[in-house]
């Protein structure tokens, strides 16, 4: 087995490394081992919101078999899960619960926004009761487009997530330095959620062509 050189800071030439490997010594970083282990045992949360959940379930069946990629055990409790697959339409009524479940997950934790609705609200974007993307309240690691995405796409998004996990630096990554990340749970009001988005996580896009004095107008939610 050849361990890829993921530690450029270690002053070891390739020949030395190869010689050491021949002698049965593997030189690597703790980061690599931790991330390799974590990437190979991503435990998703059993948690479905809409039709995307059916595809997520299909990706766990024997035909597609998400466990081939080390994500075998869907956990029923957020306290045992690493990965939240937000699979489907997040209604405004459901959004506080999604944030609360995210808050309950231990670190390190990752989020996949699955499907058009979870990414942006999708076909329901301008409706009165659908959240315009879960990334307004919690940080999303992988966006998985589709309506709904096929199970193969779920597997690919898991692969992308594993690439991301492998590049994590345990000394600087917020998952390891900030403790358990928790975000404020939005409250219900007469028309919308309060706040409509978490400014620490997400900001509305700004019109680059707008005159300077009209900018505050478009940002003020009515």
């Amino acid at each position: 087995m050849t361990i890829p050189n993921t530690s450029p800071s270690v002053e070891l030439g390739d020949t030395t490394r190869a010689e050491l490997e021949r002698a049965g010594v593997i030189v690597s970083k703790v980061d690599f081992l931790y991330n390799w282990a974590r990437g190979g045992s991503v435990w998703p949360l059993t948690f479905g919101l809409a039709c995307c959940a059916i595809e997520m379930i299909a990706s766990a069946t024997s035909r597609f078999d998400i466990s081939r990629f080390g994500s075998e055990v869907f956990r029923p409790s957020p306290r045992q899960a690493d990965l939240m697959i937000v699979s489907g339409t997040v209604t405004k009524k459901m959004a506080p619960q999604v944030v609360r479940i995210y808050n309950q997950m231990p670190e390190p934790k990752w989020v996949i926004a699955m499907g058009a609705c979870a990414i942006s609200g999708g076909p329901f974007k301008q409706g009165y009761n659908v959240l315009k993307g879960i990334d307004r309240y919690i940080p999303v690691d992988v966006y998985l487009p589709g309506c709904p995405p096929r199970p193969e796409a779920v597997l690919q998004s898991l692969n992308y997530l594993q690439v991301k996990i492998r590049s994590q630096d345990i000394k600087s990554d917020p998952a390891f330095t900030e403790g358990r990340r928790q975000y404020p749970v939005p409250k219900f009001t007469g028309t919308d959620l309060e706040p409509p988005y978490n400014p620490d996580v997400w900001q509305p896009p700004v019109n680059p062509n707008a005159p300077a004095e009209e900018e505050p107008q478009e940002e003020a939610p009515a």
Partner: protein
Amino acid sequence: MSEPVNHKPVLQRFPEVEWNEAFGTLIVPVAKSSEVATWLRDDESFRLDYCSNVTGIDYLDREFKEKVKNEEGKTETIVHKDPARMEVVYHLYSMEKRTGPLVMKQRLGREKPEAQSLTAVWRSCELQEREIFDLYGIHFIGHPDQRRILMWDEFEGHPMRKDYVEPFDYEWEPTPHDEILEKHQKGKVIF
């Protein structure tokens, strides 16, 4: 397959009940609806023991024109006025006799709409009547647990009403179209 229900005995038993031929529905006065429903469920010839669907309808004031040929053979345009109203529609089947559906309506005014709850007659109405209360704002007299069911409790307004105005929550988008484009112009955003 279920066979259609003969509605005529209802009209004989309850002269207040109307039959709308165009829609094929019984229109029952609100005050009588509970009595009529119980009778439809229990009567030997009907036995409508299953309410499959309850829904609401909202009509605003409207006028529609009809062209009619008069005695001289000329076409005349008659303007019909249809007053604003709300309706609650029940689709009834009989599991016992394998007949149905029979469609029954309660017709209500649009100001302060109040209907009779038929949950006591058909238990399956409970959640659907809650949904109608939530989305149309129709109050069901005698409902055991009338709360919002889809929207949150603090929500204001009834979104399925024709005159519901959704909150203005526009945010700039690089490629606006349709409704978003309209909101664009309402928000006086230059793009």
